[in-house]
């Protein structure tokens, strides 16, 4: 059991990061920390996805025709994660711009205070 876990430290790391990120998003009231939490979650998913395609002692998949016994890593997960990174950047940019607007309107970065002042307004 422990041996298999130690063999797959990448999976352990990904899961730990995922939980840390989720905990940060859900428990912190500061909106900036929420965005940081989302970023940690994103990193964990990317780490997990890329490490699926990894083969120990595998080579970059540039195929040499006359050598047949070389093991290549799977390039597809890395390619997919490039798309994922682009998406992650755009989500971060959009949420940061929303935070700027929120700070202008409410004068605070605390989500609870924002919700309170919204209720007072109603």
């Amino acid at each position: 059991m422990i041996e298999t876990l130690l063999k797959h430290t990448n999976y352990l790391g990904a899961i730990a990061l995922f939980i840390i990120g989720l905990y940060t998003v859900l428990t912190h009231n500061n909106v900036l920390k929420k965005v940081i939490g989302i970023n940690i979650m994103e990193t964990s998913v990317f780490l997990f996805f890329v490490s699926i395609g990894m083969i120990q002692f595998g080579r970059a998949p540039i195929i040499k025709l006359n050598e047949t016994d070389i093991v290549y890593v799977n390039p597809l997960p890395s390619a997919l994660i490039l798309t994922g990174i682009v998406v992650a950047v755009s989500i971060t940019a959009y949420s940061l711009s929303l935070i700027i607007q929120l700070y202008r309107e409410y004068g605070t970065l605390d989500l609870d205070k924002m919700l309170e002042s919204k209720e007072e307004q109603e």
Partner: protein
Amino acid sequence: MKQLPVLIVLLPLFSALMIPLIPKRKNILFGFVSVIFSTLLILTILSYLNVLSYGSFRYVFGNYLAMVGIEFLIDPLIALLVMFVSGLSFLIVIYSFSDIQHELKEHQYAYYYSLIMLLMFSMLGMLYTNDIFNTYVFMEILSIVSTAIISIKHKRSNFLASFRYLMLSSIGSLTILMGLAFLYMVTGQLNMDSMAYVISNVWTLYPTNLVLAIGFILIGLAIKSAMFPLHIWLPDAHSSAPSPSSAFLSSIVVKIYIVVLIKVIYRIFGVDIISSLRIDDFILVMASFGMIFGSIFAIGQKDIKRLLAYSSVAQIGYIFLGVGLLTPVGLAAGLFHIFSHALMKSALFMSAGSIIYSTNKRKLIDLDGIGFKMPITLITFSIAALGMIGIPGISGFMSKIYLGLALISDKHPLFLSLILLSSFLNAIYYMPILISSFLKEDVLIKNSLQKDPLPLTMIIPMVIITLSVLLIGLYPQIIMDVIELALPYYF
């Protein structure tokens, strides 16, 4: 004819890029948007007729094999959904021409329609695609765009609602991506059919991976489609958005995620694996909680749009109940309710938007005697609300009949009583609005029948949607025949 699906998906994308280039006068902009939407509608009708006469087909991009490249699968249900989505969006867009002049500043119109076009692009792409990672990419575009059409109205509550929606939907999409990683570990494929083939062969070898995968994907899609305990973003987001955006979000966007969930459950995993992993019990229980608690929360609301948003939570419960039965009859009932709820809820949001447009009143207590001032609007509202309660002759009744029959044939009588209870709760929160608008009198003005103080572009879409609600209520076979034609692709 073979190229139609690509044209349908690319047309909104290119027009989203073209809108910033056309002159900044609103008549030109509105004309351009209507031309694009009517072209889109004609193309989708052509593609639907094509599928009906020649059967479903696959479109492969760039002549790569489906295993390597990206593939679109167009079956009768998807073709019908695409046509339905573009038709309904066209009506909502016509409605929005007047409404956004009330809610947005003039320089924002072009941004708004660019966003609407991107919304159409991502929704139609998500419906068509047969590739799971492609679905994820479209899903991310959809989640950013659907938060942007909330925050475009520059009010503090909109920013807050859209920030909370963005956070939860990013958690949802990351959860889905994690699930996809687990699926990819097992299958090594991204095409849905190849995945299904691999999973059906090896699923006894990797049960842990598959449970994790379906768990992550289900929770992610449940956040995005507002399944009961994960619905907390929905009331704020849908009630503070501009009324056309609320109609889009509540009637169409949420349903697209449910269609993706249907694809994952029925096409990738297959009914046998899902039922032996006991995922269906989870869906059924959460759906019935949603049906009851969504209605209970709606009873306490004072704001008309918040009430409609909570009502959506309850109605999404019905759809999940049908989908979670894992029988052909159940899936057909769930799919039918997707159509009927989309029509009824867009009619409700449009008429609520019209009330806000002409009187600036959102509170339920201010609605006394409004049925005499705005008869057409309130008749639309009443027909849709009665449909939600389940009065015969309206499409909501037929979806409840189908759902009830599916539950009885699957021996789940307990859920049938929950449907009855939820209908009573629906009546409790919809009837007071109808009573106060038609039977009570305003303090200041005596009740006398007037013409609606609305432009024609707002009245015509509402009337068309009301007529189609009645049409589907009286002739449900129009949609049910197509659903039955498409069911073999999902079992």
